[in-house]
C-alpha cells in the first residue's frame, strides 16, 4: 500500500504533525473545560442565564469553521500566530458540548437528594463538591469526550491557516491529488479520535456513580 509506504518514509513528519495536532486539541479542550464547566454549573444554578448562554454557544457552533478562522484573523496578538488562532477557534467550538453536558448533569441530580442534602445543612460549596459534581461527573465527561472528538476532526482544518497539525498532509494531498498523502493525515487523525473516544469513555464508565 502506498499510504503505509508514504507514512513510513515520512514518519518523523507524521509524528511531528501528530504532536502538533495533539497540542492544538489538548490546549483548546483544556481552555474550553476551564471556561465551560464553571459556566455550565452557573447556568444550572441560575435558570435565567441558561437560555442566553446556551444560545450563544449554539450560534458559535453554527459558524462554518473556515469562516471562523477568517473572522478571527484580524485580532491583535492572536492573529500574529496561526496556532493561537486555531486554539481560540477550537476552544469556542468545544464550549457547547461541555457547557450543555455540565448543565444537564447538574440539573439531572435527583431533587430528593438535593433537598435532603440542604435539609441536613450542607453549604452550597459542600453541596456542589460532595453531591452535585460527583453525581454529574459521568455526564460532564461524556460532553468532554464529544468536544475532544469534534476538535480532533476540526483541527485538521487549522492547517488551512497554517496552524500545522495533521491537516497539513490532507491539504497537501488535496493539492497534489494524491490520496495516500491525504490518508497519511486522515488515518492518524482518525486513530487519535477513536483512542480519545475510547479512553475518556473508559474513565467515564469508571467514574459513573451507581
Amino acid at each position, binding site marked *: 500500500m502506498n499510504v503505509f509506504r508514504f507514512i513510513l518514509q515520512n514518519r518523523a513528519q507524521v509524528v511531528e504533525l501528530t504532536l502538533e495536532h495533539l497540542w492544538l486539541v489538548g490546549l483548546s479542550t483544556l481552555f474550553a473545560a476551564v471556561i465551560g464547566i464553571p459556566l455550565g454549573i452557573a447556568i444550572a444554578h441560575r435558570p435565567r442565564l441558561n437560555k442566553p448562554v446556551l444560545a450563544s454557544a449554539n450560534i458559535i457552533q453554527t459558524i462554518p469553521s473556515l469562516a471562523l478562522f477568517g473572522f478571527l484573523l484580524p485580532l491583535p496578538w492572536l492573529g500574529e500566530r496561526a496556532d493561537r488562532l486555531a486554539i481560540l477557534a477550537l476552544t469556542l467550538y468545544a464550549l457547547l458540548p461541555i457547557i450543555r453536558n455540565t448543565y444537564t448533569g447538574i440539573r439531572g441530580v*435527583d431533587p*430528593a*437528594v438535593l433537598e*435532603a*442534602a*440542604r*435539609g*441536613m*445543612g450542607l453549604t452550597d460549596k459542600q453541596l456542589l463538591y460532595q453531591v452535585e459534581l460527583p453525581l454529574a461527573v459521568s455526564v460532564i465527561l461524556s460532553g468532554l469526550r464529544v468536544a475532544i472528538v469534534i476538535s480532533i476532526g476540526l483541527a485538521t482544518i487549522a492547517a488551512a491557516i497554517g496552524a500545522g497539525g495533521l491537516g497539513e498532509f490532507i491539504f497537501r494531498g488535496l493539492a497534489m491529488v494524491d490520496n495516500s498523502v491525504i490518508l497519511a493525515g486522515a488515518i492518524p487523525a482518525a486513530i487519535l479520535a477513536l483512542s480519545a473516544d475510547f479512553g475518556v469513555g473508559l474513565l467515564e464508565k469508571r467514574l459513573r456513580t*451507581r
Partner: protein
Amino acid sequence: MPPDAPSVAIEFAAIEFRDVSYGVAGTQVLSGFNLEVQRGETLVLLGRSGSGKTTALKLVNRLISPTSGEVRVNGVPNTDIDVIRLRRGIGYVIQDAGLFPHFTVERNIGLVPRIEGWPEERIRERVQEMMRIVSMPAEMATRYPHQLSGGQRQRVGVARALAADPNILLMDEPFGALDPLTRDELQREFLSLQKRLHKTVIFVTHDLREALRLGSRIALMESGQLVTVLAPAEFLRCSDPCAKAYLRAFGGDHEESMHRGAL
C-alpha cells in the same frame, strides 16, 4: 443543658409557629398558622395532599421562608440562627430517604458528623451505634443505597438524621412509600426508638392510622389552615366535619379490624 435546670427558666416550646403564612405565585399555601410543639412529643401533621403540611415542615429548617409570621425554635426566631447551624441541629427525613447514591451506607450516616469535623474514630463508632439503633446489620455498612430494599433505605435515612444527635426531627411521610408490612415494622421501631430518645418530632402523614399510632398529638390540616390539634383518643371522638371525613375514609377498615379483634 441539664435536664433538672432551675425551673425559673421560662419553658419554651421546642418549635412554635406564630401566625405563619406562606404563599407562592399568588397561591396561599399556608395561612394564619399557629402551633406549638412541645419538647419530646411526636406531633403529627395530618392532612390531604396540598393541605400545607410539608410546607409547614420546611419552614422549620428554613428550606422555605414564610411570607409573614415567624417560626421559633427553642424560643428563638429561626431567622436569628445561622441557617447551616439551624439545619445541622435538626434531623430531616423524607419519603424517598434522599440518600446519596454515590455514598455507602456508612458515609451516608456519617455525613453530618463528618462535615461537622468530628474525628474519624468517633464518626465510625457513631455510625455503628446508629446502625444498631435502626436495626441494620453491620455488614450493610459498605453497601450502596441501590443495593438496599426500600425499608432498609428508610432506616438509613433515619439513622443519618439522628447521627449528629439533633433534638428535633422532621419527618416528611418517611414510611409513605413502603409496603404495609415493612411500614408496620418501621412504625413499631419508631415508637420504641422514640420511647428511649425523646426527640421533638414533627411527623407529616396523610395516613390516619399512622397518625393515631405514632402521634402524641395530631394537628389536622385542611387547605393551608390548621383545623384542630387533638390527642389521638380525642381525635376518634371529634365532631369536626373534617376529622369525621377522615374517620369515614379510614373508618371501614378501622371498625372492621375492631370487630375482628372482638370476635
